[in-house]
């Protein structure tokens, strides 16, 4: 079974996945943008500013999801020393940082017309900013440290400490009185968002997910080539 996880098989799978994503990405992007910018209705209170939600919410979801995966794999890597997890985390972290930054920027652009301010030291906003710093520290370990064991140790510690921030981000709107609204979409229980807005949001989330997957696969492919290049004579 383990032969399916060899770098060669992973490389061939990556090639197929990249081709698949490339073939469907632009179609879904056009559908998503049409829904988000044209077909979805304006909000009764926020007006057209609500359209920022279609880029802000998926960015935040992916930023959080990437860090959750990084934490999980860091723990496994710390215990079992699986080298693929190291490369997965190295490839995932810049994507997580990108989407966390985008969530903060688009949130700020949404905050100005709805709250009347670009920024507030609100629990949700501050915890998202902390997540961004955890990503920066995490990525810096790969840039500044040389020994792989040292990188795994330090980056895992950062990921585990940073993971404490994840439930804080999720529940900050319930635990404290914040400017940021409580969650409108719930996995368990009924969501308070109308289906006419839910559909574009889900399509845009799929677009963001496909983009993140594409970048991840390209980065992971680069890592495999780097290893193969080192071992070219041994192959």
């Amino acid at each position, binding site marked *: 079974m383990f032969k399916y996880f060899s770098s060669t098989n992973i490389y061939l799978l990556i090639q197929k996945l990249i081709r698949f994503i490339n073939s469907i990405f632009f179609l879904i992007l056009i559908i998503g943008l049409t829904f988000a910018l044209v077909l979805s209705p304006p909000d009764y209170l926020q007006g057209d500013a609500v359209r920022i939600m279609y880029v802000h919410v998926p960015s935040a979801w992916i930023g959080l999801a990437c860090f959750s995966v990084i934490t999980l794999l860091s723990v496994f890597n710390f215990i079992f020393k699986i080298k693929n997890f190291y490369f997965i985390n190295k490839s995932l972290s810049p994507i997580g940082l990108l989407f966390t930054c*985008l969530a903060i920027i688009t949130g700020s652009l949404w905050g100005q017309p709805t709250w009347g301010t670009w920024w507030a030291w609100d629990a949700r906003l501050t915890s998202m900013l902390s997540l961004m710093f955890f990503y920066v520290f995490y990525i810096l370990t790969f840039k500044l440290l040389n020994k792989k064991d040292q990188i795994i140790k330090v980056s895992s510690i950062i990921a585990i400490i940073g993971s404490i921030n994840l439930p804080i981000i999720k529940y900050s709107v319930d635990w404290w009185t914040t400017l940021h609204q409580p969650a409108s979409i719930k996995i368990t229980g009924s969501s308070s968002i109308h289906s006419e807005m839910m559909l574009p949001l889900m399509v845009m989330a799929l677009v963001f997910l496909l983009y993140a997957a594409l970048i991840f696969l390209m980065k992971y492919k680069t890592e495999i080539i780097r290893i193969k290049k080192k071992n070219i004579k041994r*192959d």
Partner: protein
Amino acid sequence: MILSFISMNGHGFYVWLSFGVVFISCVVVFLKTKKTLKKYEQEFLVELQALTLEEKNKALENSKVAQQILATSLKIN
């Protein structure tokens, strides 16, 4: 109609700027990632070309990744 679509009842600046920032950032990251990938593929090919014929054949025989990179570069060229 086009003007009202662009102005979005006064929220156009925030909406278009948000979508614009996301779009530009994503394009920049995509191009940068693609450039790095191509760079490493090229470096891999250079290393492969530097091998002796025997070593090169052995490397290509044993590594499907090497075969794939070589095939991709031949397709492009």
